[in-house]
């Protein structure tokens, strides 16, 4: 059930201030997320996806990175103007996040129960027994067997998949409105990736929370998401409903990404890959950022950044030649 | 040469220059005693003489000359101890890492044991059983160094062993000894250089401490540690005898540490935990 807008990001700019200069890692990103919706944020590694997510939570690496412009509206309130105290009340309670590597995202010296309860106790203070009950309930909801015993265990006693379920339990324990999942299955064994995606989908449908799903894998997007935003070198270059983008990718980069997903039962001699490397953030091209790798690029593509054009209902792309296939 | 610690390099170069040229630079003999002129203060203090710019010690020996020659002793001991101790560690590290298996686990047990027990106690024991002297001192300090070098080098070799050029050499039928000498050794030299620089400071302090405790170079050799020990009883009346060699030690050690840190960051950043 997709409802009204819960999270709206408008023209977000996050820069890294390094000794060798300013690097615009997120450069004018806008998107919105409605209740009960899963939005995929797709792109190659180091295109600014994770930095976008951390910008929303205001947890950028200090002191190098800073959000210098834009708005992040959660339920109509701008998070970028909140005090750090207010932000701490929002993190974990209204927005939760799942990180990529379960092996390192739990603290090795504290029990699962401890790490789960401290978050619950922080946002819903109450009797120890109530907190404990809530924690066990969260573990049960992520389908971890024997949750009562898990509470006393340490991370190293659990497998990678189980740990990622615990991270999921921490995320949903305070019933957030928005969950950010940053490549949550990349570090898992292939056999349990699908299980975990299914679990996330179920949790999302049960609670009507919105998910911002960050991935580099268009195959996963197709399974998980309602809408998709494709990110390249700090900007969103195409966005729209998953079906439409899949069937009619307008941006050459999107086309390339989709083509690089290996398809079953398709007899291709070799897998598709995109030539070249994404541009260095410190030396971005003047025009379209994909132009240096784009087979369709002409003089205008190299000099002027393309306007955003509508290529379908709620489907837009930043391209001078939208819809032309490579 | 970005961020090169120039002050540190300056101190090190001066130190090396002084060590080499001490006989030319020193205004007096470092060991000639002149009891009539003992305990003269440095020139800027009341009673100081321009003949002895930094004063004289309890036996009337010129402080400046002894300090200059002390640099020489420090450098000779450092060079030899690092050569012997570091060299042994390098060889053991390479063999242990490359050969692996039981030999590796036995050698590493010994290394662990050597690291777990304070080397100074053996150094003192050696001084008592073998007698004081340069040879004893070099062996004593090498005992402190070899295990530390061996452990780091071994770690490096374990990583190198998995690299393609080593596998290729093996396929081509190179003997293990040849592979270690021609493929492994050149590739751990960076690490070895960084370690050597980082440990110069440790060796200088160790030499000074052992000499201070009467287990280093025998008197009247001008060692900074020995000088500090000789002036200890006179701290109330002749502070310069103990304080000056200490300043020299601290400056030089500081310089080598800063330079070593810089070299490590440039050549081998993963050694940062050291």
């Amino acid at each position: 059930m997709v409802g009204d807008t819960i999270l709206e990001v408008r023209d977000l700019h996050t820069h890294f201030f390094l000794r060798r200069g300013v690097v615009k890692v997120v450069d004018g990103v806008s998107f919105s997320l409605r209740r009960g919706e899963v939005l995929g944020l797709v792109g190659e590694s180091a295109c600014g996806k994770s930095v976008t997510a951390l910008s929303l939570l205001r947890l950028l690496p200090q002191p190098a990175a800073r959000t210098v412009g834009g708005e992040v509206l959660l339920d109509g309130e701008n998070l970028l103007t909140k005090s750090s105290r207010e932000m701490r009340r929002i993190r974990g309670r209204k927005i939760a996040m799942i990180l990529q590597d379960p092996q390192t995202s739990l603290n090795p010296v504290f029990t699962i129960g401890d790490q789960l309860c401290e978050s619950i106790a922080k946002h819903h203070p109450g009797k120890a027994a109530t907190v404990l009950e809530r924690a066990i309930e969260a573990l049960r909801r992520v389908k971890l067997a024997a949750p009562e015993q898990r509470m006393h265990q340490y991370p190293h006693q659990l497998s990678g998949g189980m740990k990622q379920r615990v991270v999921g339990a921490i995320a949903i324990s305070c019933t957030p409105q928005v969950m950010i999942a940053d490549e949550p299955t990349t570090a898992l064994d292939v056999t349990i990736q699908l299980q975990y995606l299914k679990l996330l989908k179920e949790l999302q449908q049960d609670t009507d929370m919105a998910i911002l799903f960050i991935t580099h894998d268009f195959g996963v997007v197709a399974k998980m998401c309602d809408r998709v935003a494709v990110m390249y070198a700090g900007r969103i270059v195409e966005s729209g409903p998953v079906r439409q983008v899949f069937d009619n990718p307008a941006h050459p980069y999107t086309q390339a990404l989709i083509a690089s997903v290996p398809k079953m039962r398709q007899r291709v001699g070799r897998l598709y890959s995109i030539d070249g490397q994404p541009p260095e953030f410190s030396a971005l091209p003047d025009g379209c950022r994909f132009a240096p790798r784009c087979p369709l690029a002409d003089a205008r593509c190299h000099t002027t950044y393309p306007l955003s054009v509508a290529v379908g209902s709620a489907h837009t792309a930043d391209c001078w030649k939208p819809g032309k296939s490579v | 040469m970005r961020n090169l610690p120039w002050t540190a390099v300056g101190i090190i170069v001066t130190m090396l220059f002084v060590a080499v040229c001490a006989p030319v630079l020193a205004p007096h003999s470092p060991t000639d005693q002149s009891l009539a002129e003992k305990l003269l203060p440095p020139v800027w203090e009341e009673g100081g003489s321009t003949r002895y710019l930094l004063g004289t010690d309890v036996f009337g020996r010129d402080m400046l000359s002894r300090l200059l020659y002390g640099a020489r002793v420090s450098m000779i001991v450092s060079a030899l101890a690092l050569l012997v101790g570091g060299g042994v560690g390098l060889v053991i590290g390479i063999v242990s890492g490359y050969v692996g298996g039981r030999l590796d686990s036995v050698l590493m047990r010994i290394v662990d044991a050597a690291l777990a027990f304070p080397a100074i106690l053996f150094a003192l024991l050696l001084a008592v059983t073998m007698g004081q002297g340069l040879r004893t001192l070099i062996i004593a300090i090498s005992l402190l160094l070899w295990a530390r070098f061996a452990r780091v080098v071994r770690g490096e070799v374990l990583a190198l062993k998995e690299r393609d050029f080593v596998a290729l050499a093996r396929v081509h039928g190179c003997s293990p000894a040849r592979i270690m000498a021609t493929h492994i050794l050149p590739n751990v030299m960076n690490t070895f250089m960084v370690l050597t620089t980082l440990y110069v400071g440790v060796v200088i302090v160790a030499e000074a401490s052992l000499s201070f405790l009467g287990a280093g170079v025998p008197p009247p050799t001008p060692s900074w540690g020995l000088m500090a020990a000789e002036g200890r009883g006179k701290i109330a009346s002749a502070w310069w005898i103990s304080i000056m060699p200490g300043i020299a030690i601290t400056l030089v050690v500081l310089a080598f540490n800063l330079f070593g840190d810089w070299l490590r960051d440039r050549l081998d950043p993963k050694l940062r935990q050291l």
Partner: protein
Amino acid sequence: MRRYILRRLFQGLMLLVLVAMIVFFLGRLTGNPVDLMLPEDALEEDRKALIETLGLDGPLHQQFAIFAANALRGDLGDSIRFRGPVVDIYFTRLPNTLMMLPGVMAVALVLAIPLGILSAVHRGNIIDKVSGTIAVLGIATPNFWLGILLIFVFSVQLGWLPSSRMGGFEHYILPTVTLGTFLVAGFMRLIRSSMLEILDSEFVKLARIKGLSETIVVWKHCLRNALIPVLTLWGVFMGGLVTGAIVTETVFAWPGVGRLTYEAVIFRDFPLLQGVIIMDAVFILLINLFVDILYAYIDPRIRLAD
């Protein structure tokens, strides 16, 4: 956990045996053991008696058996200088050293942990710069010279503190600072570098994502993890502590085990030095065992591994 402790205990005992063997062989092979173990003016019958009791005319392995058997009975020979059993002399000096250690450890931990953590958390600010300078200087300054310098400034020039020997509280200040500086500097650098790594870790990121305050993130989630490298590298500090104790007690004429070691060296009292080293090894073994237990307590990966 039990297996871990037993293994560490076994390793410690092996070390002890190794140390005893090295000490034994150095004493027997580098010269005439009789000369090493008796004063120069020893009578001929004393020499004969020594050869008799230690079996010095027999083969080495028999000599070692006698040596080991005596050691196990608590007999490490007689000091030349003090003309008495080495073990007794060691135990009369040990309390004086032990009285200094708690202060040193307390100072080291109380200073090094907060400073190391704060300088990592506020990297580049004034605390970081000041404590970084102290650490660099503390590592570069030889202990003996720091002691002499402190005596010169605080006893000779200012006349505030006593320069040597044991006594009331004020006697403890300079030796504690001297011995503590090395440990503080080393701990601080180690804690800072491990804290920097931990602050960058994913579990700290997750702790912040949960909405926890910085105080809890730093002092709960980071602290324990930052202590682990200090405990794993304990052996290195142990070496520094022993060296520091010998030098510091020498400088301050502190009648402890460290000063005893120095006396054994300058009086060329081999039996005493041999005994002190073996007793030190026993003592180090006990401290290491305690550190191992502490380590297991802090790191569940060790505690629960069986």
